[in-house]
């Protein structure tokens, strides 16, 4: 039984290695355009949109489930209705309500939920 597990382990890792090796080749052939989601390390000029459009279309505010607006200057996702902005760090949007920034001073403070 253990030999079977070991064989399976060996073949699994072998298969994963093989497919991983193939993946970059496929990717090079398939993707003609360099991804917009660039490497966000030290770009002084206009930084490339760090979050790709497909993901932005998918995201909504976790509190109100309303669509969000992407603000390129501050690199945040803004919910106009509630007046909160979700930050995007290193290309990863942070959609935790407690981490969101209040935009308007008079915006109703959302009760922090666990």
């Amino acid at each position: 039984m253990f030999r079977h597990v070991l064989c399976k382990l060996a073949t699994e890792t072998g298969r994963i290695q093989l497919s991983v090796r193939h993946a970059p080749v496929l990717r090079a052939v398939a993707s003609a355009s360099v991804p917009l989601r660039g490497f966000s390390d030290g770009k002084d000029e206009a930084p490339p949109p760090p979050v790709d459009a497909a993901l932005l279309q998918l995201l909504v505010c976790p509190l109100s489930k309303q669509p969000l607006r992407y603000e390129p200057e501050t690199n945040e996702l803004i919910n106009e209705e509630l007046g909160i902005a979700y930050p995007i760090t290193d290309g990863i949007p942070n959609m935790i309500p407690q981490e969101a920034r209040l935009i308007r001073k008079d915006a109703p403070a959302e009760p922090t939920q666990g």
Partner: protein
Amino acid sequence: MAASIRLFFRRAIRHSHRNININFAGSLGRSACGAGASPCRCFSDERSTHFGFETVPEAEKAKRVYKVFESVAQKYDVMNDAMSLGVHRLWKDMLLHVMHPQPGARLLDVAGGTGDIAFRFLDYVRSQQERQQRRVARSMQTPSWDDISNNYSTEDEAEPQESTAVVCDINKEMLQVGKQKAEQMGITTGLSWVVGDAEELPFDDDQFDVYTIAFGIRNVTHIDKALQEALRVLKPGGRFMCLEFSKVTNPVLARLYDAYSFQLIPVLGEVIAGDWKSYQYLVESIRKFPDQEEFKGMIEDAGFYCVQYYNLTAGVVALHSGFKL
């Protein structure tokens, strides 16, 4: 005499805390939280929950879980391999095998952390696509004139459905590790990373074909809310799949498993990740999680149909699956 009775009760309570017998401890904990007639009532009027074998206010649990994963993030994958002797890879492969995703499927991997499930999903779907293309090519070996003319007209829709995977986790550090892995593996398209709370997903209704949560749901403070959110974001016909540590059915193996968990795993945690307490939490949280049948009931309560579970490795891990119909 009253004093001795009090002593007896105190010892019994201490015993029950130390007792590894899950069902007893689990039901005790839950009934205490539900009925409210328990020592936990001393925390103002906050509900309390379990953090491993400790009882903590609910608001605190999320923070402490966050700290646990923040500290283990860098060594997470290494520890997984060490603790399970590599078997976690087989469990995750089994999840994909049961899922059997088709090209064009959209996956949401909650508590996906370092992205193991998402990577496997993309691999699987891509190899499925290759297999389909090969099959089409083979059947096109001797095409008729009709086939050739059809082929010319459909050539522009090269990839009509692109499978995408979204990895959502409450912990930024885990996602950073996962993102680095993705960059090393050269995966650029079809994979997104989002910081989000499983109890309040930042996605609209009816978005995903498959929702997976692997070894994450026991860390969620309100499991029922997470299940409701899962139901919400799945498309009708979508599948909910959950891999989680569960109850070992065989009593002999259960004793061995307990000994292994409590003696060896925290030690491994200290040696490899330098963090005894996090891994102590991990093995305790496994004991507090409901067993296979109970969790199946919770999934059904949330509104999923055709809920079933598969025991992997004699019940060490259970794979629960349900459909949104």
